[in-house]
């Protein structure tokens, strides 16, 4: 078999590139990052006419100047990755602007095959594209396609393989820039030829064009080469010459000329029957971005995303929780008590389960975001809200980053911060990066869900809605303050395409949702597993010194012997073993699964009944009722004392561990908010990842249980825990919402801003803000006696 063909997929955003990529590669795709940067790189392979084709999806761009990182990545791959062929995806219904990128690809000298995509949409709009005429004009294969239905894919691949096998590399100069410019171009090109300069497979004509356009990225490629200075001097002279003649800068002249060429090509190949016809999409927009209706619908859409996410995912979330509870019980039963069981049950299953249990919720949220993106409504959100965001020193494009970060609760600040790469203006971009972690990311949701479920069970969706408003208010205020202090300056341009509304493909939505959810699960499965184990160890070691443990044990056994010494008790419980048997039976009763009730001693049944347990199997024995009631009293007193002693022991043990010590030390700091040391340990764990807050709380409380079978869910536990009330829950929610970004986010902030001090800044300002706001909430709440 012949060598593998590398095919680069290029095209404008919204040209249907992703759909075509999915149609080409199907499930055989892999998502990663471009080397050294965090822009997503999708790759996939396929076989066609016995050739293996490796498809690389380039970032969607409008042009190939060095305007944004995406454009540089796309360009560098074509230059240095040397793909055998570039597949240019153009939107047939929006051909003119799409051809601007195509023309640049041709100028580069790359072998190009054009997919005239969304041909169905164009036909629906009565736009007739004569693709064979276009083929002649551009001298490349042009194939009409419909990515959604897979129309034209096979022919596209035939032509691509044919092109790779038979066509020669031919330097293309499809655009003639006019005598004056051509003269200067050939001067530069000639100098390049003379120094035998080569950049990949690219033509020196293209290099000359880029140099005359003043492209600094390309000029850098000449660094260290002999003759560099001579070339740059020529470029400088030519640029000045052209500027003098045309009274405009050369890059503008080139752009003008390219669009001039495109206009000509369009006139010859495209026929539009009804130019001013109003399309369906515009009619939809008459309602959706209407001055009055638009904002109302916007709020309604955001609100229904909550309902969809929370109520839609509820059954699945419940069944996940049940599964992990079942798994924990299974392991508890199968393994002997000890360190290993504690590690597996309390460390791993509780920790990872606490996070994975929320996977359905995250998946529903990603699905909702994918729908907003793929239908085109996301751009309308930015359109309607830009005026508001600008007031806070942000940008319409910040909207997307903030949304992905959790503007609609459930995103993640990491991809959100990466989404700021489309923003050119460094200050607005940096502010967006810095406030993005304040949004309600998916990792904070488990904390909210836990506390809302426990303390505000009646109003889940309403409280979540309120929390979203709070996080937006905080992010906007923080942005405003940062933009008017640390990063002051004027705002950057806002140039945003409003793509036509489209019905998304189910497949596209599912792939999108799956990829993002899988990223979340991977994070939960790796980082969180490691952190869960570390946290478990922090909360297990060092263990209570032997003498202290012994003294507790002695006090407990003293209680038991005192109880057994009672005459009424002694009659029933001859030994301590009998007492243990009864306790085990009572626990089974409490769990409602006393299967062997009839095998128990009749006295046990009678006592259990006197203690208030009801069961058909408990036979009434009137004669002993009075005596049993008395015994039940003493037993209850004994059980309570014993229980509190055991709790005291566990408490002392936990406090003795490393985690406990940190938590205790922090009690002084968090005293005004009323967080106890267990909450503090959870918050410390949250420095690594917010997901850990819930799992640490879970670990902290489940470790306090004697018997796992008796363990009630964490929410139930918190509800009955002294000191916990709705106000404390709300205070904790506010603190978790705002404090320190997770470790991964801090790394991304450092990398994206290029300076680690911004990570440090983010850490300090968010935690300070969180402390102040939590203090405020708690003080006001206490003062007004709300939720105490």
């Amino acid at each position: 078999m012949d060598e593998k063909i590398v095919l680069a997929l290029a095209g404008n955003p919204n040209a249907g590139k992703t759909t075509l990529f999915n149609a080409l590669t199907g499930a055989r795709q892999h998502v990663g990052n471009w080397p050294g940067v965090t822009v997503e790189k999708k790759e996939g392979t396929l076989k066609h006419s016995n050739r293996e084709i490796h498809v690389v999806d380039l970032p969607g761009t409008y042009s190939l100047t060095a305007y944004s990182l995406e454009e540089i990545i796309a360009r560098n791959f074509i230059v240095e990755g040397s793909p055998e062929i570039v597949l240019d995806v153009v939107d047939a219904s929006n051909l003119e602007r799409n051809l601007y990128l195509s023309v640049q690809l041709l100028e580069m000298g790359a072998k190009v095959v054009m997919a005239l995509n969304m041909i169905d949409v164009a036909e629906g709009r009565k736009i007739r594209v004569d693709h064979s005429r276009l083929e002649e004009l551009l001298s490349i294969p042009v194939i009409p396609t419909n990515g959604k239905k897979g129309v034209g894919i096979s022919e596209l691949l035939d032509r691509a393989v044919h092109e790779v096998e038979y066509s020669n590399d031919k330097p293309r100069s499809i655009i003639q820039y006019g005598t004056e410019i051509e003269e200067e171009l050939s001067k530069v090109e000639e100098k390049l030829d003379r120094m035998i300069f080569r950049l990949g497979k690219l033509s020196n004509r293209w290099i000359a064009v880029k140099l005359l356009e003043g492209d600094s990225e390309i000029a850098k490629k000449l660094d260290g080469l002999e003759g560099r200075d001579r070339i740059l001097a020529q470029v400088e002279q030519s640029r000045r010459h052209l500027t003098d003649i045309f009274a405009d800068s050369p890059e503008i002249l080139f752009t003008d000329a390219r669009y001039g060429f495109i206009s000509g090509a369009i006139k010859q190949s495209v026929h539009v029957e009804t130019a001013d016809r109003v399309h369906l999409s515009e009619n939809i927009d008459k309602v959706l971005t209407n001055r009055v209706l638009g904002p109302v619908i916007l709020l309604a859409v955001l609100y229904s995303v909550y309902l969809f996410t929370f109520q839609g995912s509820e059954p699945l979330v419940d069944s996940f929780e049940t599964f992990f509870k079942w798994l924990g019980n299974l392991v508890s039963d199968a393994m002997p008590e000890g360190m290993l069981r504690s590690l597996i049950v309390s460390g791993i299953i509780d920790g990872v389960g606490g996070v994975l249990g929320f996977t359905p919720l995250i998946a529903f949220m990603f699905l909702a975001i994918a729908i907003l993106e793929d239908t085109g409504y996301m751009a309308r959100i930015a359109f309607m809200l830009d005026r508001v965001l600008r007031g806070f020193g942000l940008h319409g494009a910040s909207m997307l980053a903030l949304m992905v970060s959790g503007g609609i609760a459930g995103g993640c600040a990491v991809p959100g911060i990466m989404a700021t790469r489309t923003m050119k203006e460094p200050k607005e971009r940096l502010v967006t990066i810095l406030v993005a972690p304040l949004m309600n990311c998916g990792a904070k949701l488990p904390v909210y869900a836990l506390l809302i479920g426990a303390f505000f069970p009646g109003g889940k969706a309403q409280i979540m809605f309120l929390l979203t408003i709070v996080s937006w208010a905080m992010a906007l205020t923080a942005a405003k303050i940062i933009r008017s202090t640390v990063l002051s300056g004027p705002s950057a341009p806002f140039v945003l395409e409003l793509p036509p509304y489209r019905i998304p493909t189910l497949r596209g939505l599912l792939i999108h949702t799956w990829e993002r959810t899988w990223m979340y699960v991977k994070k939960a499965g790796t980082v969180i597993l490691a952190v869960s184990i570390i946290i478990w160890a922090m909360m297990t070691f060092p263990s209570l010194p032997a003498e202290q443990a012994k003294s507790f044990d002695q006090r407990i056994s003293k209680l038991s012997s005192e109880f057994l010494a009672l005459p009424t008790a002694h009659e029933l419980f001859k030994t301590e073993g009998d007492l243990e048997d009864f306790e085990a039976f009572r626990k089974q009763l409490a769990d409602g699964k006393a299967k062997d009730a009839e095998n128990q001693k009749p006295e046990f049944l009678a006592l259990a009944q006197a203690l208030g347990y009801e069961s058909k199997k408990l036979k009434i024995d009137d004669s002993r009722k009075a005596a049993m009631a008395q015994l039940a009293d003493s037993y209850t007193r004994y059980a309570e004392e014993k229980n509190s002693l055991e709790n005291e022991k566990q408490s002392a043990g936990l406090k003795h561990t490393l985690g406990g010590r940190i938590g205790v030390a922090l009690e002084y700091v968090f005293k005004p908010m009323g967080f106890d040391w267990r909450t503090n340990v959870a918050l410390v764990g949250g420095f690594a990842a917010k997901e850990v807050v819930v799992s640490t709380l879970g670990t902290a409380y489940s470790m306090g249980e004697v018997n796992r079978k008796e363990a009630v869910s964490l929410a139930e536990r918190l509800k009955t825990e002294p000191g916990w009330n709705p106000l404390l829950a709300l205070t904790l929610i506010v603190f978790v919402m705002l404090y320190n970004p997770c470790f991964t986010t801090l790394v991304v902030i450092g990398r994206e801003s290029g300076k680690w001090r911004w990570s440090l800044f983010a850490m300090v300002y968010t935690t300070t803000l969180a402390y102040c706001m939590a203090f405020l909430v708690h003080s006001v709440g206490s003062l007004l006696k709300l939720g105490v």
Partner: protein
Amino acid sequence: MNDSTSQEKCSDCPAMIDKECTVGDMVKLSSYRPGEKGTIMQVCGTPEFRLRLMEMGFVRGTEVKVIKYAPLSDPMEFVIKGYHITLRRDQAGDIMMARPEKAA
């Protein structure tokens, strides 16, 4: 509309087209009302901004139609070269246009 504001704009226009820019009958795109259309005469602003806009199709001689204003009157939505795009009002002010005509 040979008014003082368009002259001010041109004085710091890096396009070196000061003379052209003050020639009468040019209005800013931001003065267009929804439903009006017209032809681009010149794009001003910083070199980077001009290039970006031109790459998106805002080149001389192109027809622009105003579709609507956003709910807070800013930004504005346009159709250019058959697609929809949004710009802020002050950016639209950097685009000098022929006098508007009512779109069909």
